[in-house]
């Protein structure tokens, strides 16, 4: 069996699993798996770029995904009336002052001669800067949060088409990645891991607490849809030509409209995935991709050949994070709401890692395959676990404590299964399902 045949078969198997869901459960859940699988595949491509191409250990995927989601709110929702005049400009001024403080401290660290005077100056700049920042920031943020807090209380967005928010999400994530990369890259690999883990938690903390920005844990609802492709269920149900088409398929108009909306998303996501996959493949084959892998395999040798390792690492770190940001923006668009409380590192960071490792790190198709397969498992392990638990406990008397406990715990089989899959793949097929060429 040649490699192409094997890989095609693998993809066919995963496609078959999703189709099976459609036939045995419902087409609605099958398309849901497909849509989240497409988004996961994009995240996997981003992580694969960093880990598979360059060997960078980024466990802050969640942070970049969340930043992408934030971008959707900041770009596509309508601005809150009066928010800018009440305090928006003040907040921007405060953030600028904060940035100036940090830049001044960094300059002092670089330009001044080392010694006690330098330390004192840096500390003084930071302390004074912090209090000035808080003095400008606090009243303005409070002013924004006071505007109609039940439905708004945030600065709102730019009211632009939501599709523009996707690249914007990428840019926002890229900017954050640049800042982290500047400080943490060049240190040891474990330190980058801890630093990214921390930054992801901080991004989530900011999104939960800064109500003026995106309403914090009060969540933002009603994010507009990419209307020309996706549409709204109610409009479709009132459209006679749509009802006629649904009738032709033999479907109830209500079910047909929900399916149609989801398929619209699938189409959009598929286009983004194919474009990014094509770009990642071109990058892998290009001299740049070969250089990256050379750096990954032997940094010292690559440096001796005159490659700027730290710069290249920064470059690919920013690119990979930007892709995760795009995926995050797409996910928030699909959900139609931003809920900072739901970001969990196990789901948004470590699960993506399982996808990349299981699929095959260093191979873009492997990462995509892993994303679909692991997402399918993630969704389906819960009903399967429940089924197994029902089977195991069928002999036990009804109402026994153990039986109730086992059936209730079936929902937690997910994490266990993911860990098991990861360990088994790492042990017996460490290069993944579709290994790097």
């Amino acid at each position: 069996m040649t490699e192409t045949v094997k890989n095609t078969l693998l993809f066919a198997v995963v496609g078959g699993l999703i189709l099976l869901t459609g036939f045995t459960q419902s087409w609605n859940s099958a398309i849901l798996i497909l849509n989240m699988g497409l988004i996961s595949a994009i995240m996997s491509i981003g992580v694969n770029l960093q880990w598979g191409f360059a060997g960078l250990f980024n466990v802050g995927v969640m942070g970049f995904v969340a930043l992408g989601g934030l971008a959707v709110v900041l770009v596509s929702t309508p601005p809150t009336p009066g928010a800018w005049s009440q305090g928006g400009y003040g907040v921007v001024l405060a953030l600028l002052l904060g940035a100036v403080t940090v830049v001044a401290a960094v300059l002092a660290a670089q330009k001044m001669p080392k010694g006690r005077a330098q330390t004192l100056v840096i500390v003084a700049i930071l302390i004074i800067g912090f209090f000035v920042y808080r003095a400008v920031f606090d009243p303005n943020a409070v002013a924004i949060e006071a505007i109609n807090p039940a439905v708004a209380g945030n600065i709102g967005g730019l009211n632009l088409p939501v599709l523009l928010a996707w690249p914007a999400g990428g840019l926002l994530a890229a900017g954050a990645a640049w800042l982290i990369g500047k400080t943490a890259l060049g240190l040891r690999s474990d330190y980058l891991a801890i630093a990214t883990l921390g930054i992801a938690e901080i991004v989530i903390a900011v999104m939960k607490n800064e109500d003026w920005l995106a309403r914090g844990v009060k969540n933002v609802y009603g994010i507009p849809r990419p209307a020309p492709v996706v549409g709204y269920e109610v409009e479709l149900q009132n459209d006679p030509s749509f009802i006629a088409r649904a009738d032709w398929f033999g479907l109830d108009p209500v079910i047909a409209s929900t399916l149609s909306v989801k398929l619209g998303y699938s189409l959009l996501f598929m286009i983004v995935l194919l474009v990014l996959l094509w770009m990642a493949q071109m990058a892998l084959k290009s001299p740049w991709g070969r250089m990256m892998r050379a750096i990954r395999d032997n940094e010292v040798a690559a440096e001796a050949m005159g490659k700027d390792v730290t710069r290249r690492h920064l470059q690919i770190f920013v690119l990979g994070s930007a892709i995760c940001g795009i995926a995050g923006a797409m996910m928030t668009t699909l959900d139609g709401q931003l809920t900072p409380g739901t970001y969990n590192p196990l789901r948004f960071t470590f699960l993506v890692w399982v996808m990349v490792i299981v699929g095959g790190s260093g191979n873009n198709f492997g990462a995509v395959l892993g994303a679909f397969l692991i997402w399918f498992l993630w969704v389906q392990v819960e009903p399967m676990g429940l089924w197994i638990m029902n089977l195991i406990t069928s002999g036990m008397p009804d109402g026994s404590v153990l039986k109730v406990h086992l059936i209730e715990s079936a929902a937690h089989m997910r994490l266990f299964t993911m860990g098991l899959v990861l360990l088994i793949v790492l042990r017996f097929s460490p290069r993944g399902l579709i290994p790097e060429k």
Partner: protein
Amino acid sequence: MDLLNALVALSNFVIVPAIAYGSQLALGALGVTLIYGILRFSNFAHGDTMAFGAMIAVLVTWGMQAAGVSFGPLPTALLALPFAILGCILLVLITDRFVYRFYREQKAKPVILVIVSMGVMFIMNGLVRFIIGPDDQRFSDGARFLIKARDFKAWTGLSEGLAIRTSQVITVVVAVAAVAALFWFLNKTRTGKSMRAYSDNEDLALLSGINPERVVMITWILVAALATTAGVLYGLDKSFKPFVYFQLLLPIFASAIVGGLGSPLGAIAGGFIIAFSEVTITYAWKKVLTYVAPENLEPSGLVQLLSTDYKFAVSFVILLIVLLFKPTGLFKGKAV
């Protein structure tokens, strides 16, 4: 000006909680640092190891409470601790035998071991949720306070009260005992010395006839004991919730790295540095400042530098500062 009251308020809200939290972090960081020193990787499953040990303690405590066993004014969980440590040792030794040993024999790169520990993290997390569920569990009993705020006010006649909880005193006492035992073991016993030798120079240690598998086994046993103790103390002080233990990973790693990975002394120092900075930066200083500030100059706001939800940011920023200016940590750690 009322310095005495300010001091009491400061102790009540900052110093006492930070000492307790610092001891918990230090115990956690010691486990991370030992694994890093001997097995040479960052163990992402450490938070979940703590959760697993604490979970056994919770279950045993419940069993003892049901059987009517109690420890007087002290929490029953202290009686359950030895059983929990045994259970946790069993788990990590099984994990080592079936997971980590394979990669050790392969001489896999440290980063591969980190990814493996990610898988172990998922499994342990799943196990804990499977057995006890993801919710908050309370298992502390016995006397809640050693000194009550009201009693303190009555004794001293001050307007500020100082409350010291039993769990805080127990945390500090147990932590000191555990650390003393650990240092005695590492410095005085033959096995401890062989562990330090292995950590300093693996090849030289192997040449002098040290059995690496034995060193690794002892390390895991120590790590399980430390992690369980840290987990139980944290659970007694706050409450037991699996996801919180996972989130402790960040401050624990920050403590270990700030102190210098691989240095036990550094882990302890790092734990207290992180704990004190987290508590002081997220504490609302209004009360203390009102006592200290001269008449008419009392602060009007809360004087809270950062909201409590940003405590992760504090440990993170300290971590970055130390990494940028002293990459091997305060007490010279090792760099793999």
